């Protein structure tokens, strides 16, 4: 006996609790099963790359805050690295350490958010998210203390960082770093052995290592699929070559593994911050650069390991005070491109969990 059901189109988003912003999924479903999926992006497009061609190199830094607004520090850092490569500006050692500290703090904040919203997508009623927010809040307090802003920090500068941290910064970060391992254990206790979370995310959204590489994935998505690739080790920038840390990799490549990888990366980031704080030299925090930097004609590609993956900034100079071309390699967009492969054939709840495990930031996808 056969029962005939008709496929229908379901618009998930642009306003939907699980799309993390204005992102739209056009899903063809048969009952609860997904037959086809279109991803529609562009609702948050602000034309940053074009706008950047009209502004000076320094004026472009705030754009990088607003691309990936959950990891503004990483965006700042990647862009500044690219411009420094282009113009040959030297960075003082203290600034490099501070950059590492703030980039890692940002990674912790972003991964906390990612894991919290991921468990939320799996159906927990906000509780893990709120717990994750607790540490994120302290990190944002640290940002505020140092640079005055919490979310869109605009902290890194070409040739260093904008401000030296104030004296009260150091006891605060000490207490945070000493608290963090316990707190991570707390989340792990709540979530890692949770049968429901296991049932919901094990084997969901699986990507093999080959597919991950072929899909040009990066970050926790790639490492969750078992490929030990991390720019901080593969192509160390700042002072990451002096830090001792491990790369966490998953075994199955499913949503749960990505969650584990992110949880473990928070631990590793804590380790890096501890080492960077211990090794923080004194000295200037910034090299003075001309108000309107005019690099020699040429091009540079600066990339960092952002919380979501390889965050690259391609900057072309024609000798003027504004970049001739500015392009962002947004890891969210590229990681998202495999969602269709993950979701088609599975059910709607699985697709939502897979989407949550990608950890997209729509500001970065659309720019």
């Amino acid at each position: 006996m056969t029962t005939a059901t008709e496929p229908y189109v379901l618009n998930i988003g642009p306003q939907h609790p699980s799309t993390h912003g204005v992102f739209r999924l056009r899903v063809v479903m048969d009952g609860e099963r997904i037959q086809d999926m279109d991803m529609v992006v562009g609702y948050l497009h602000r034309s940053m790359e074009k706008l950047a061609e009209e502004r000076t190199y320094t004026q472009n830094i705030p754009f990088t805050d607003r691309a990936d607004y959950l990891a503004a520090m990483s965006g700042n850092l990647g862009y500044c690295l690219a411009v420094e490569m282009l113009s040959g500006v030297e960075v003082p050692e203290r600034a490099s350490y501070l950059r590492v500290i703030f980039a890692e703090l940002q990674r912790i904040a972003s991964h906390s958010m990612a894991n919290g919203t991921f468990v939320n997508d799996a159906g927990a009623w906000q509780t893990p998210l709120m717990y994750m927010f607790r540490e994120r809040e302290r990190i944002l307090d640290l940002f505020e203390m140092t640079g005055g802003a919490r979310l869109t920090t605009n902290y890194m500068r070409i040739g260093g960082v904008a401000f030296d941290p104030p004296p009260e910064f150091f006891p605060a970060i000490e207490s945070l770093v000493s608290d963090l391992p316990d707190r991570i254990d707390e989340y792990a206790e709540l979530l890692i052995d949770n049968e429901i979370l296991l049932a919901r995310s094990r084997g969901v959204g699986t990507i093999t290592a080959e597919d991950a590489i072929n899909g040009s994935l990066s970050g926790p998505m790639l490492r969750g699929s078992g490929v030990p690739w991390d720019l901080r080790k593969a192509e160390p920038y700042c002072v990451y070559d002096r830090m001792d840390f491990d790369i966490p990799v998953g075994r199955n490549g499913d949503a749960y593994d990505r969650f584990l990888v992110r949880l473990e990366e928070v631990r590793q980031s804590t380790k890096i911050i501890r080492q960077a704080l211990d090794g923080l030299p004194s000295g200037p925090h910034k090299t003075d650069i001309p108000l309107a930097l005019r690099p020699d004609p040429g091009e540079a590609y600066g990339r960092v390991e952002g919380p979501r993956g390889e965050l690259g900034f391609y900057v072309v100079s024609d000798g003027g005070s504004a970049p001739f071309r500015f392009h962002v390699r947004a890891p969210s967009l590229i990681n998202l491109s495999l969602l269709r492969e993950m979701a088609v054939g599975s059910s709607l709840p699985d697709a939502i969990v897979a989407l949550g495990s990608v950890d997209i930031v729509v500001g970065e996808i659309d720019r």
Partner: protein
Amino acid sequence: MSSTLRQGRRRPATRVPPGLMIVGAVFALGFLAANAAIGYVVIDGRLDGQWYDIRDLGFAVQELKAQLDAINDDQPGFLDDIVGQHWMSYAVGALLGAIGILSFIGGALLVLIWVERRLIGRMQIRRGPNRVGPYGLLQPVADAVKLIQKEVLTPDGADRILFLLPPAIIFVPMMTAWGPVPWAPNMAYLDINVGVLYLIAVSSLTTLAVFLAGWSSNNHYALLGSMRTVAMMISYEIPLSIALLSVVLITGSMQLSEIVQWQADHNLWLIALLPIAMVTYFFSSTAELNRTPNDIAEAESEIVAGFHTEYSGMKFGLFYAVELGNALLVATLVATFFLGGWSLFGLEEWIPGYLILFAKLSAAYFVLVWLRGTLPRFRLDQLMRFAWQYLIPLSLFNLLIVAIEASLLARWDAPGLVTLGLFTVVNWGAAYILFRDWARRIGYQPDAGGPRRAELTQQVGGIEAAHRMGTAT
């Protein structure tokens, strides 16, 4: 820590609008006055010159009805020939019960919304509502006023008549299901002899309202939500009914007051005797209630709000109230069936039974809130599999054991301590073995699916490194 730098303006506390204050004051004063009047009538012995205390409101109502009957017998009313004798006492009983249930649910909802939000807030290391009124206590009132003010939308293409009905229909089972709950000895509104069956029957009507809401909304999310609800309800009504059947078997009655009386007589709560039934009932109820971890019918992250996606204003408010009222009802029924109802090992002589029951239902309700604050959500197929492969066989096994025990109890003339003690030990042993081994039998492996920690490596590389480490899949 950062207080030296962050000097946010201290915001003045939100002012309660005067209208809201009047509404709250009228409500609270009316409630207090009604209770005071009842208390006065009861305690002062106005009914029959005898002194009653507040412990036995039900008896007072009965006495009131008896007085009315007596008046009726002395002076037959003009309606007696037409609508029958004692119509007055029936009407008074019905009215008192309806007012009692309505004001209890209304008051409890107002308090419990606040309690739930505060509790969840505490669980989520936030404060919860604390702005409107003292300790945020008027927050539910403010929410209700806001909902009433909001526009009630009817989406384009919706079936207008059917769209109108469900919020009203869904309120009926929630209200009527409170009828048979015994609050104290003699204090049940509708103490019918088929109470358990009545509860199951009445709660099954919710399905229809939910389905109509989803169908008439002309919205895919709503339709998905309602289909999920229908599928869940037909699955979980079976273990739920079987769990209640075992209660009926052991107590030998479908009357709720008798079930509580049995527990009071034997000084044994059924949670001790029927652990499997208790767990089955509680879990199935959360599935029927759409509460986490089984809230797939209104799974926020997937289908927005499920069947009531398109409802706004007070129509949504009704769904919300019914959901909470049903949660409260389930807590009450768990307390009644498995936690001894109004009985407390003889202490009910001194403490009013309804207070004991309220304490127990609060405990059960706390567990519901706790679950909601902790757990993620199952997937539809997982829940269905759980019902059909796990809960239904388990509850059938349990029913078999309980049937044997019930027939033993009827035939074996031994002291209750011996039989019931033995049964308790046997049932807990059976529960332990069944819960563990049946899960294994249907293929659950606790440590399957690979490691639960990410592997740490110092290596860097692409696919070769992954193959070298053996992590490539």
